């Protein structure tokens, strides 16, 4: 196991370097005219002032020097200053992160609460009415874009029924609609995956054996089938955190939820490249880390893999 962890950590190095280099190059290609954009609204500014600003931001240095200086900053948590607010980018990002993490966690919780029972139910009642009904709804949910769902929810629950506020500004009520939006999309996907996983497990020979020995159906289901399919289900859920982190951007900006997704969208509108850069890199790092932990957990929890490695 230790050897495996070491190997995975080692594999991470080129990926992290790649992520940073790619994001840096991307922003650099764009940032050339950032100074022009900065002074666009303040009328005619002489080239000398612009050049001074470029020097201040370090935009006149050669590419590789800029990259290494910047990478050193990333490691120490110094990712430059926002073009707009002049505040440190990293601090701003960190201050908005808890809101996004909170939203992600509530959405995952709701997804688990919806998709696991319905997925199991759908598998147990394979090809019967309940199964068709659940599959029908998960299919609908899969075809609805998140922004349409959020606008529908706002229309019915906030504007017509006045149950929840339109925008996220404090109070437990403001998290209900964004959570629901994210969970609808995720749950539709995971109900199907849970169903497939449980169906595959039910198809295995040991289930047939247990049934032949006269083991009662609930025991077969809860003690054997669910226990062995849970591992796959949890792994799939953990891996979905990534798509969720990216997906929050749209939902956050619709519900004015003050997290990193909204920050990113706002920053793009204002061409605040250091801010976008921080967002891209940190989201990617979080994603890579979550995936690594999931993978290690999977290896640790599955006795078939764990024992094989110990031998």
């Amino acid at each position, binding site marked *: 196991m230790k050897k495996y962890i070491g190997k995975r950590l080692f594999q991470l190095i080129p990926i992290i370097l790649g992520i940073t280099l790619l*994001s840096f190059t991307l922003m650099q290609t764009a940032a050339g005219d950032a100074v022009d954009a900065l002074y666009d609204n303040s009328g005619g500014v002489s080239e000398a002032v612009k050049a001074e600003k470029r020097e201040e931001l370090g935009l006149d240095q050669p590419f590789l020097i800029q990259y290494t200086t910047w990478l050193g900053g990333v490691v120490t948590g110094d990712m430059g200053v926002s073009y707009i607010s002049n505040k440190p980018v990293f601090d701003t990002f960190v201050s908005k992160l808890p809101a996004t993490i909170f939203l992600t966690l509530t959405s995952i919780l709701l997804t688990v609460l919806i998709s696991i029972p319905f997925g199991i139910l759908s598998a147990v009642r394979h090809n019967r009415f309940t199964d068709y009904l659940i599959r029908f709804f998960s299919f609908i949910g899969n075809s609805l874009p998140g922004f349409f769902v959020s606008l529908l929810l706002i*229309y019915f629950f906030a504007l017509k029924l006045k149950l929840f506020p339109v925008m996220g500004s404090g109070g437990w009520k403001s998290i209900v609609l964004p959570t629901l939006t994210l969970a609808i999309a995720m749950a539709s996907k995971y109900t199907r995956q849970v169903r497939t996983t449980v169906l595959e497990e039910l198809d295995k020979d040991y289930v047939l054996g247990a049934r032949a020995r006269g083991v009662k159906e609930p025991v077969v289901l809860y003690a054997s089938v669910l226990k062995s399919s849970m591992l796959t289900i949890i792994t799939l859920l953990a891996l979905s955190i990534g798509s969720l982190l990216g997906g929050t951007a749209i939902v956050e900006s619709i519900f004015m939820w003050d997290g990193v997704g909204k920050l990113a969208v706002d920053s793009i509108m204002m061409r605040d490249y250091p801010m976008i850069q921080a967002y891209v890199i940190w989201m990617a790092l979080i994603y890579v880390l979550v995936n690594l932990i999931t993978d290690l957990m999977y290896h640790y929890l599955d006795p078939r893999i764990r024992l094989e490695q110990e031998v």
Partner: protein
Amino acid sequence: MELTTVKATTIKIRTHKKQQDRIMIKLFIFLALVILLLLIAAFAAQLVPYDPYAQDLTIALKPPSQAHPLGTDRYGRDMLSRVMMGGQTTIYSALLLVGVITTFGTLVGLFCGYKGGKIDSFIMRVSDIFLAFPGMVFAIAVAGVLGGGIINAVVALACISWPKFARLARGQVLAIKNMPYISAAKLSGSRATKIVFKHILPNITGPILVTATLDIGTMMMELAGLSFLGLGAMPPIAEWGSMMSDGRSMLQTAPWVILAPGCAIFITVMLFNLLGDTVRDVLDPKTKKRPNRRRK
């Protein structure tokens, strides 16, 4: 005794045949509907009842009526015409996107899988980097850097989506690369390009086609999402995502401005997903295997 087994087998074959027939009928129905949709979108400019860009403020924000079945937006533009024109933008840019990533990804995968060695592991590491970005995050950044425009949104999404197809194709190539018929082709003096395109490619199109069809809906939603954020199609160009973004502020007073393009996306994505599921049922060997395992 013998007779009953024969009978049972006949019944089994017959039900299997019936199932196959049902799937094929489903495939033709969905394919016909998708083609209809594509035709409407393609000839939208000729089919629209009104000019989708003509503004008439005297009839702004009118609810659905006989003259304007889907109502009008805040500039008095006919929603039905705009939804039809928007379909052209949304559907064909999604198809373009899927076409580009499928072709590019498959070519990369074919090359890497067949060639192997250092160049293969280098390209695969590069694709790892693209896969390390969560979902839309990188696309949002690329679209933001490139600026608005539907083509830029397509480029942004293509950047993050090609590795999936490259990996899929590469895996398939690796699985059949060492089969005897490939060795036979090599021995008979066929060149690498001929082997790859004539002997390998036809055998891996199934899974790639299934993934590509299932991806159209997702890509369409992501493209519309980028447009919704203002990172895709730019107004006044009619596009479903940006049309919905346009109607956000009038949600309370004129919900039809959002409902019309929203339902259009929903129906289109659902249709492509249905087609994708059916194509998978037809082509994917995995679903065909299931009854076999049961019999054992």
